[in-house]
């Protein structure tokens, strides 16, 4: 019952809405919690025990941190901080340990086995089949954010266990996030405010938009992506490039579409979930792209890895040493670069246990590092040559450059292995004949009816995104129209999804990509 299935938006969600509204305000939180449990159970069954234990652990560690701060027992501030840090480390490590064991044991085991084989040690790692609960990577980060905020004193420890459980298990966020902060959702989830008609209307309208992106565009492209990435060795370089572009489109349409469904679901209950996308392809560079793509993951890494690492004592000391030897112009990059490295290593690993993801993380580390170093010289250079960085020409150049960066990164991200990624990438430069792509375009799992649908879908999403960038919200605009026009608009939108959606017989149901991370 993923978010884009009829079982979710036409059965499960309406039932929850109805029950929520029927029950008295005081126990509405229990309806949400019960829905969370049912939703989680439908995917992971008994593995819900992981979530229950994680919630309990988070709750008690939070209280423990608070207790240390409130009852120092004559300890000095330094010792209090030290004690709190140990408790925080315990809470984080216990949760991370579950994530690491379930997701990375096989990867580390296989890597160790490969290394030993290089040194002629005859040991083969036998993979263990782990059952991984749904959303583990997402709720683990939420736990880290909550505990760290309590440790820092920016968040009060929660005394009501239900709120902690609600925060970690809200069903629309279970599969793909967004990674929210405690203060963003917990109180609203517990308050049990009545569902407002406008929230219900706008929530479902946003769900419809998400469904359009996911089942009309992304799922229609999926067979092409699967075919090209699976057969690139026998295909022309132009087709390999087309496959990588299709994957970027599929991933964006799917992930952002899913976020529309998730945020729309939250909106119905009056929960404002954080946005995860902000027109990423209008970004100025790779760094800016990541401030617009999977925003909640980026801000998590910024707040809980980048700042702590760049402010850490050993990093600061090292920066001081570099300053003495090489001067300020070099030392100013030390702390941010060390933190940036940790962020991108974590980003790569978070996506999964595969060298392709680590490479993907390092790819962006290098790119953003270069961007940081060249920022000032480039600014001076363009000023000297009187290049207007806001001119249309320059913006087009910037958009093309960014698109190439993103497509290259996602090619490796989606490759079966790093070796496959390099081979596929190499094919683009060694065996590129555009005529091959043109002549075989309809042999790539999209027929001549599918391609116009995808193109129109992309154009529509681009227009809506461009308007959003200018703070023009289509939904708000439409809601101001007279009823007949409004209804015709929404009937057309609903029928567009129903008629042109890639679902049912003849289509393979496509799982949500990020639900696997």
């Amino acid at each position, binding site marked *: 019952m993923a978010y884009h299935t009829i079982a979710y938006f036409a059965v499960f969600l309406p039932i929850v809405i109805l029950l929520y509204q029927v029950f008295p305000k005081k126990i509405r939180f229990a309806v949400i919690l019960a829905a969370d449990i049912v939703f989680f159970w439908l995917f992971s069954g008994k593995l819900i025990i992981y979530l229950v234990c994680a919630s309990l652990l988070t709750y008690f560690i939070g209280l423990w941190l608070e207790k240390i701060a409130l009852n120092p027992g004559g300890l000095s501030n330094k010792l209090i901080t030290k004690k709190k840090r140990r408790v925080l480390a315990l809470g984080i490590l216990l949760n991370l340990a579950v994530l690491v064991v379930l997701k990375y044991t096989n990867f580390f085991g296989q890597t160790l086995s490969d290394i030993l084989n290089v040194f002629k040690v005859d040991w083969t790692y036998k993979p263990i089949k782990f059952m991984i609960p749904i959303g583990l990577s997402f709720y683990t980060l939420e736990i880290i954010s909550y505990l760290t905020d309590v440790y820092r004193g920016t968040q009060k420890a929660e005394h009501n266990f239900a709120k902690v459980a609600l925060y970690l298990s809200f069903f629309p966020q279970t599969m793909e996030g967004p990674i929210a902060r405690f203060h963003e959702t917990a109180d609203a989830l517990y308050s049990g405010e009545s569902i407002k008609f406008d929230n219900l209307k706008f929530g479902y309208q946003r769900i419809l938009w998400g469904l359009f992106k996911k089942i009309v565009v992304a799922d229609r492209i999926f067979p092409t992506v699967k075919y090209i990435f699976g057969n690139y060795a026998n295909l022309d370089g132009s087709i390999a490039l087309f496959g990588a572009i299709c994957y970027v489109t599929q991933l964006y349409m799917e992930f952002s579409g899913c976020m529309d469904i998730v945020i729309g679901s939250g909106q119905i209950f009056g929960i404002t979930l954080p946005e995860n996308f902000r027109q990423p392809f209008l970004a100025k560079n790779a760094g800016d792209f990541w401030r617009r793509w999977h925003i909640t993951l980026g801000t998590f890494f910024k707040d809980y890895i980048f700042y702590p690492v760049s402010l850490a004592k050993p990093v600061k000391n090292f920066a001081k040493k570099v300053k003495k030897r090489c001067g300020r112009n070099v030392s100013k990059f030390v702390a941010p670069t060390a933190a940036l490295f940790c962020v991108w290593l974590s980003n790569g690993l978070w996506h999964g246990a595969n060298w392709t993801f680590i490479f993907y993380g390092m790819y962006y580390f290098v790119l953003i590092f270069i961007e940081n170093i060249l920022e000032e010289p480039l600014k001076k250079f363009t000023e000297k040559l009187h290049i207007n960085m806001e001119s249309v020409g320059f913006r087009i150049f910037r958009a093309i450059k960014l698109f190439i960066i993103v497509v290259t990164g996602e090619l490796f991200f989606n490759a079966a292995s790093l070796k496959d990624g390099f081979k596929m990438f190499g094919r683009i430069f060694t065996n590129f004949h555009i005529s091959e792509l043109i*002549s075989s375009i*309809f042999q790539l799992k999209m027929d001549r009816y599918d391609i116009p649908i995808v193109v129109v879908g992309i154009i529509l999403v681009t227009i809506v995104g461009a308007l959003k960038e200018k703070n023009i919200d289509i939904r708000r605009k439409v809601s101001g129209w007279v009823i007949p026009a409004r209804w015709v608009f929404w009937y057309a939108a609903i029928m567009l999804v*129903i008629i042109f959606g890639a679902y049912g017989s003849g289509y393979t149901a496509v799982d949500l990509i990020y639900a696997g991370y």
Partner: protein
Amino acid sequence: MLKKILRAVGFMAGLAIILATTSIILKPKSDVYNAVGVDKKTKDFRKETEQSLDLVFFGDSESYSAFNPLQMYSEQGYTSYVCGTSLQRLCDTYVLLQEAYKTQSPKVVVLETNCFFRFSGLAEDDSDKVMNTFAKVIPVLKYHDRWKTLVPLKIFKHIDKNEGLLKGFRYRTGTEPYNGGEWMKKTEEVAGTGANAEHYLKKIKELVESNGGTLVLVSVPSPDNWTYAKHNAVEKISEEYDLDFLDMNLMQDELNIDWKTETKDGGNHLNFLGAKKVSSYLAKYLSEKYNLPDHRDDPAYDGWKEDIKESGMDI
């Protein structure tokens, strides 16, 4: 608030009318499962010159990946067409066969037997039970994709090689080796056929015979799909219904398929090279056994020679 509720009810009523109308428009007249596949195939099939085909193939993707009518014409001279559709169920076969008899009178009808092991009627597969339930009430959810066959789209037609030219055969060039070894290990076990399979087989047989034709069962080599237990099941049916059955999975020496290079997807479907061997063997077998005519010297069939030339296939 009451005004808002009434408005919402009005909106939903309007939506219900639209859904009902589009359902009526898009629901096919016959009981078919893969409506789009059947529509497309019917449309393509009707382009064939009337009363020009000696043989018609039916079945799922196994059939259109393995049977190459142009090659069969080139080697034996008789004309054929593949009415195979993706995941074909026997209820679809029956509808397509009815369509075929409207314009053709094939002497032989070949049915690839992989679809015997699929549910044969209209009931949905189990993949999305909730959607299936909704689709029963709102048929447009099931038949929505039929817009593709109802909307004439002329753009890009000149580069869409999939349509028509190859007489229903799919020219598949991909290669993914099959490494699983022998798959036809002798057993007494009899696999269970899909529900309703025999019901539709009986109807298909009656239809073929009432049109003066012969129904032949053929199983294409496919380590991924076929087993000896399935062979036993079809053999039993063929005896019961007095039908000829050729299981090409048991003819590995005769066909000599190289499973490293002649399968498209690890032993599921044959690619062009595998299809070439199967088509060559089957063309001769059917020609000899059912005394099919040779039209190679008949100028009325010169269009087939042109199609071979235009297809660019090495046959």
